[in-house]
């Protein structure tokens, strides 16, 4: 009998709605609602695991991620368990975001399908501004956009992928849904069959969840604060009745004894929900009853139980012993491993840092408490928003709202985490921006932590991208400074800048590609030669005062269009070139929060030697 079996589509169809199989280890995955976070986790959050999100200070991006997770669950028709102590769980559910393109019933008008993101609009604006500033003929300007795409430094790079810092979203099938919604106008979710439910829906942060969707949503709300109050009042009543004649010491001891075990109560509730809904595979409501026969059809009708816990271990959570939370997580993990369920837990980790860590912008070393929690979870990420940072490091990276640290990614049923194979954001190899001389993220993560990640919150979505600093002074400024010499179209101007050579001579623009290719393809020595040669030849072009940047690094910074940068960055496979890439970021960011990591310094030093 052959060991090769053709994968029949029916096996895929029998998955629960909104799930997919991991391409690496066959794990059932659900989406977190954020495509880039799915990518980091290796395609999605594996069923049966716990994701810990360490919240940001002063902003609530952590809760935003939790909301994405829950909202995606409502789209897929999953059971959503919302646990919250600080805020009322109802408030969290009611404030979930709407689906992009869906007509919101609450009356917020959305004209048509505005699929364009802020980023693209920005780019368009930039182009427009550039067009105003430039002196070239209008026809040349019209060409510019298309020219920018086609422009290659050297033919051998033309086949390579474009440089991208994020994960592209799949084109959503929004138009069809809008039509359907317009025709029947009764909420789109029930009309979808399980196979039609998207793995990851596109949401719109400017709208709220529709009332219809809220009605159909299958949610269980657990207000941990409410649980606590009930228990406390119960205890008070009993205390009053029989503790009147007891002395003070005994009384307090008894109070401690009777202090409610809040985590236990929450866990009991979760277990109850899992068992009631039939999400658990080992635990049943009535053990004596005959187990229901598992049929493939039943699997397709099955839903996932999504557990979202908001701000666990915040001051409103009471614990009886220091181990309460550890025990809670361990028991929850044991529960979820044998259930069709997954949990996302946010925790205000910054409350638990030690004094010096509390003020560090890069609190990569977490407290022992948080660290132990991470051991008990399957995945752990930390959000660090610039708004909450105490230094003004954010000014250098205004394009991002904060940094995104990956501490741990799930390793299940395999030796290596699936994201090392599948993730675009974590693994620099897939994209060509990272390299062997990676930044040493103090936290590292079980992934290699090659990339620094940042996040942006646009009008419509939350996106995690590779963090890189913009050219100093901005692209626009650089362009205008190279203006005087340009007599021809802006195209050759840009070529000249990319070659970091003088644009006064017409031959230089044709020389530039050759120089660059020789610089990037060879070993470190040949590159340094190329760099110094460039410097000698030009000497007049350099616009920025970037301390410690070699000629090639300048070149890299001067590259305006994405296509070129990608070609260069991905074309370099040796370690030295990566050093330059880091040099690029280091030179700009030496005063910023992301600098001062050993790996980066190493890269900078290696290219300083070229000088």
């Amino acid at each position, binding site marked *: 009998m052959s060991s090769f079996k053709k994968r029949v589509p029916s096996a895929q169809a029998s998955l629960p709605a909104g799930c997919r199989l991991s391409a690496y280890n066959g794990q059932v995955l659900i989406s977190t609602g954020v495509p880039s976070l799915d990518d980091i986790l290796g395609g999605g959050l594996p069923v049966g695991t716990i994701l810990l999100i360490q919240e940001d200070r002063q902003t609530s991006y952590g809760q935003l991620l939790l909301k994405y997770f829950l909202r995606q669950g409502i789209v897929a028709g999953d059971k959503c368990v919302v646990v919250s102590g600080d805020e009322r769980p109802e408030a969290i559910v009611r404030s979930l975001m709407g689906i992009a393109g869906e007509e919101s019933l609450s009356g917020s008008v959305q004209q048509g399908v505005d699929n364009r993101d802020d980023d693209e609009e920005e780019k368009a604006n930039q182009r427009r501004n550039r067009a105003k500033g430039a002196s070239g003929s209008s026809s040349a300007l019209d060409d510019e956009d298309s020219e920018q795409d086609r422009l290659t430094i050297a033919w051998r790079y033309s086949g390579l992928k474009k440089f991208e810092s994020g994960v592209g979203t799949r084109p959503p099938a929004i138009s069809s849904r809008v039509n359907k919604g317009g025709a029947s106008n009764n909420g789109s979710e029930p009309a979808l069959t399980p196979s039609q439910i998207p793995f990851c829906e596109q949401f719109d942060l400017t709208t709220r969840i529709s009332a219809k969707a809220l009605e159909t949503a299958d949610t269980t709300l657990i207000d941990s604060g409410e649980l606590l109050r009930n228990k406390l009042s119960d205890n008070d009543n009993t205390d009053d009745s029989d503790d009147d004649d007891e002395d003070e010491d005994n009384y307090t001891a008894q109070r401690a004894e009777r202090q409610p075990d809040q*985590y236990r109560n929450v866990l009991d509730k979760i277990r109850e929900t899992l068992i009631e809904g039939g999400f658990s595979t080992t635990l049943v409501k009535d053990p004596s009853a005959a187990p229901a026969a598992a049929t493939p059809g039943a699997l397709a009708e099955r839903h996932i139980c999504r557990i979202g816990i908001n701000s666990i271990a915040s001051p409103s959570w009471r614990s009886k012993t220091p181990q309460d939370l550890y*025990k809670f997580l361990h028991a929850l993990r044991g529960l979820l491993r044998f259930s069709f369920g997954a949990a996302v837990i946010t925790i205000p980790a910054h409350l638990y840092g030690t004094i010096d860590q509390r003020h560090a912008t890069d609190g990569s070393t977490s407290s022992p408490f948080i660290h132990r929690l991470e*051991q008990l979870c399957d995945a752990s990420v930390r959000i660090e928003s610039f708004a909450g940072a105490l230094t003004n490091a954010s000014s250098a990276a205004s394009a991002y709202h904060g940094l995104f640290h990956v501490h741990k990614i799930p390793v299940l*049923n395999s*030796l290596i985490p699936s994201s090392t194979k599948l993730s675009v954001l974590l693994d620099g190899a897939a994209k060509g921006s990272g390299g*062997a001389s990676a930044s*040493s993220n103090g936290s590292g993560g*079980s992934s290699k932590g090659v990339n620094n990640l940042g996040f942006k919150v646009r009008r419509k979505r939350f996106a995690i991208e590779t963090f890189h600093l913009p050219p100093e002074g901005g692209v626009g400024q650089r362009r205008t400074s190279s203006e005087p010499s340009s007599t021809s179209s802006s195209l050759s101007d840009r070529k000249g800048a990319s070659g970091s050579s003088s644009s006064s001579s017409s031959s230089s623009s044709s020389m530039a590609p050759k120089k660059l290719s020789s610089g990037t393809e060879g070993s470190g020595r040949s590159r340094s030669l190329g760099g110094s040669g460039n410097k000698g030849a030009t000497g007049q072009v350099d616009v920025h005062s970037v301390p410690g940047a070699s000629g090639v690094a300048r070149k890299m910074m001067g590259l305006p269009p994405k296509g070129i940068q990608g070609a260069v960055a991905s074309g370099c496979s040796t370690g030295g070139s990566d050093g330059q890439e880091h040099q690029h970021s280091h030179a700009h960011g030496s005063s910023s929060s992301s600098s001062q990591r050993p790996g980066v310094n190493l890269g900078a030093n290696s290219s300083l030697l070229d000088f």
Partner: protein
Amino acid sequence: MGYLSLESHLPPSHAPLLPPGDYFSITDTQASDGNFLLHHFISNYVKADQNVVLVGLAGILVHYTMVGRKLAINLATARTKGNFYFVDGLTQLTDYAAPNKDHIARPAEPKPLASGPPSRTIPAPPPPIVLCYSPKLADFYRVLEDLIKNTVSKNSKGPTGQERQLCLILDDLSVLLNCGWSCRDVLALVRYLKLLVSQHNGTLITLVHADGVMAEEPSQDGLVKGVLYEADYILDVRGLDSGGSRDVHGQLSMLHGPGYLLRQRSGQVKENEWPALTLHYKILDNNVEVFAKGYSSGVL
């Protein structure tokens, strides 16, 4: 067979098995998980048809079975044969999880099996033993003691007639500490288990997390130090000091425990038989490459 490149660096006296009566302690950090070493030992012992008892305090049986499949061993058949025992230390370990017991489904009657395809003549492996909550760790010890004595009495002799070796693996000692037992109790459990296992021609392997951050907590620090004090051999897994790399996932130090020198003097171990050394490793899909520092495929 486990990882070939690692095999040559382990104590050679009983290769591919470990020297019986010894205690191997694996310490790891969050950035570099030491779990892959456990798989190596499990697969080596199962391949050699020896007895393995695995206590899953953090991992579940499915995980080990799936990885075992990648390493070309079948843990399900080993369980049926009685060579491999899995102890579930996850689902009912704490008092929080204790109510789970009331809801466990009774094992299905053999009736549905009869209706299944006739190829399933192999009896299903026995259900894993579950560590149920108890305030005293001594109860856990008793469970494991019963299991090990049972196992050894049933199949102590290998196919060739010589005595079988035993390997007891605890996949995450830190969990016990996290779940509320004191450092003293956990260390006492380790000592008891070490003694128990050495009586039965066995080796004890434990894994404990030893991140630098954790040293701030006295209990966690005490556990790591205590475990290292007890150990005969120490396998220390940590990330590279210089950060991450695509070709090197971390650094693996193989060290002698504190008792090594005395045992060397008394002639129990030959001198220079097993030098302590530090290597680098890279985890692949179904193998782990271990190589000398600086000899990664990315460099050469």
